[in-house]
């Protein structure tokens, strides 16, 4: 695991302007993802973990708006701050440098297109020249280098935007291009351990089971070999045996491709099994970040500790955190956990604790560890 940081979110503030008022969904969030590591983003509903991941890809839906902070993303373009990127840079970045998979896989697959078409769409958006070259090469091998089809491909390579190219490409078959794309689709499906990928490529989303659909979604996300993958609770809706298979797959992918993964979940068991580092979020703030072994053996922030204690253990009764998550519409002064914290002090009511490095690589935002001057 190198120390190169691929994603750095600093002080991110996101507000949602709703009928009921302004919801301060994210209030100065700090997250960083290093190359080749799996970072677990843990939090309950309303903690802001999904909003954080959507912000990185600039996909926050209205009435949400990013109000402050910076998001640094290691991309192949010049601009590194996502918040300053223009639309075309964003489009080329999404799917190629960073991709995302979601919780309910079948909701994110278009029901009227089969698997081949959907994965093919992404491949063609980002890697079209490659396929065109391969198609031309295969036609040359078949001694059909002078055909209309081959010339079409050459035209599309040379001047893809010109009017004549776009007009002429409507005529003539694109059989070879499709064949090249299909070869890659099958290869990608194989890499996510889908049995019988040739048959699956022709299937429609409603014919896929939950586990298969999630694998297809992972295949789509990895089709263009992005460096960063964001996974938003991809196994929450799956059976526990299928979840074990998918977690295994993710581990395998990390090993084979050295991917960096931001894995969002609320299940501490998954975090322990999968992640290298953990970031814990509560009510729009990151309260603690650290190495997974350190967090599980010695968590610093009271919320993290309470979460670990609430894991059900037989014979103990169920331990919960008293109180409820505060509403984010009325801004709360000080630390947002103060009403439920067993160690709350006076300063916690007034000033928000800073997010500081307490041990090497282990950050937390809590006055228990000083900083209350």
């Amino acid at each position, binding site marked *: 695991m190198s120390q190169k940081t691929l994603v750095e979110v600093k002080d991110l503030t996101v507000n949602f302007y709703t009928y009921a008022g302004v919801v301060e969904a994210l209030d100065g969030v700090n997250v960083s993802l290093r190359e080749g590591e799996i970072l677990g983003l843990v939090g*309950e*509903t309303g903690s802001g973990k999904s909003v954080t991941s959507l912000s990185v890809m600039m996909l926050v839906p209205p009435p949400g708006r990013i109000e402050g902070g910076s998001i640094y993303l290691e991309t192949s373009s010049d601009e590194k701050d996502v918040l300053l990127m223009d639309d075309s840079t964003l489009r080329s970045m999404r799917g190629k440098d960073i991709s995302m998979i979601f919780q309910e896989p079948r909701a994110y697959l278009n029901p009227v297109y089969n698997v081949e078409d959907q994965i093919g769409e992404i491949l063609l958006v980002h890697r079209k020249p490659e396929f065109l070259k391969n198609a031309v090469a295969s036609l040359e091998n078949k001694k059909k280098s002078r055909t209309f089809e081959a010339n079409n491909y050459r035209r599309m390579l040379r001047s893809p935007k010109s009017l004549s190219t776009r007009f002429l490409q409507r005529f003539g078959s694109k059989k070879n291009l499709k064949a090249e794309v299909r070869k890659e689709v099958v290869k990608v499906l194989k890499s996510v351990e889908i049995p019988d990928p040739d048959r699956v490529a022709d299937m429609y989303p409603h014919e896929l*089971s*939950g*586990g*298969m659909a999630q694998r297809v979604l992972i295949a789509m996300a990895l089709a263009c070999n992005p460096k960063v993958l964001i996974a938003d609770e991809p196994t929450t809706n799956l*059976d*526990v*045996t*299928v*979840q*074990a*298979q998918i*977690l*295994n797959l993710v581990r395998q992918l990390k090993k084979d491709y050295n991917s960096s993964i931001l894995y969002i979940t*609320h*299940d*501490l*068991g*998954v*975090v*322990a*099994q*999968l992640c290298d580092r953990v970031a814990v979020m509560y009510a729009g703030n990151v309260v603690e970040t650290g190495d*997974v*072994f350190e967090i*599980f053996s010695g968590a610093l922030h009271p919320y993290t500790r309470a*979460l*670990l204690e*609430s*894991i*059900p*253990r*037989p*014979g*103990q*009764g*169920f*331990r*919960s*955190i008293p109180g*409820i*998550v505060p509403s984010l519409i009325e801004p709360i002064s000080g630390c947002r956990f103060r009403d439920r914290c067993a160690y709350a002090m006076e300063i916690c009511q007034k000033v928000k604790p800073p997010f500081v490095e307490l041990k090497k690589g282990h950050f937390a935002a809590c006055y228990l560890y000083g900083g209350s001057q």
Partner: protein
Amino acid sequence: MSYLLQVRNLKKHFPIAGGVLKRSVASVKAVDGVTLDVLKGECFGLVGESGCGKTTLGKTVLRLYKPSMGHIFFGAPNDAVSEITNLEATNPKSRRLRRLREQYDISMYRGRDLLLLRRKMQIVYQDPTTSLDPRMLVKDIVGEPLIAQGIAKGEEAKKMVVEMLDRVGLSERALYRFAHEFSGGQRQRVAIARALVSRPDFVILDEPTSAVDVSVRAQLLNLFTDLQKEYGLTYMFISHDLSIVECISHRVAIMYLGKIVEYSTTEEIFQKPLHPYSQALIASVPVPDPSQRKERAPLTGEVPSPVDPPVGCRFHPRCPLAMSVCKQKEPLLIDAGNQHYVACYAVNRENS
């Protein structure tokens, strides 16, 4: 030790219509021959993955579906049940059998008997957002069972509703609010109040904490335990979350594709799972301890469709211990010692 609920060879098949004239071409065998007993006052856990039929089993027991076959005995004395079982084997056409069945077998209840039964058996659904009518006030939602069953009306009903709401931790102000004004955990409390307002003996909890926040889950589960003690309730706790089931149930049954593959006390099941599926299932649960990481997924493949279950033992296509007999005949649930029932040839052969 009295049994509150006894299920014998229960089957529920859903026909699939197909063809031009919409004939039944196949059927989804959601529950395909389940036999179990629930003791009075216990929490019986029912575990399985999607498609195993646990929710269908719960709803069939509650008579929300009419069973395709089998018997369900609720509150029947032990000798009546054994007499029925005997008569079924020896003299199936006897009039006494029919009379006994009409009295105790709730799968045959209709009309007024069914209405009285509803008072004693209730259900709490998984998703509190869809299980509460979005256009009804909480007062009417919780009060509906009282009115529908003719227990109380008007002022008296309102008093019972307030009492129940208080017991589940909601204030009287909740009466005149709509369900969507509350958080998920509070909505689930409303659903619990609705289930308990008619003072039932038996409550089916269909994944009651799955759709609720993690921090609220513990509160709800503690509430369930308290209510069970206070009202002497018997629970059937259906869930796919094994860690919760381990903490709250006294006995557990594991279902796969419409059949029970193993059942025993919680300790026996979780400490010494015998059936290969149970072992794989329990091993698949991610342990919240980073020093215990597994390298391989315990179970490959996916659950086959319940329309066309495999012949013989349903688990044999994915089972590491599959033998030739597993592909031909279904194994029966046999006591492998210490009241630990398993349906597996490999396991039972070792023991015999």
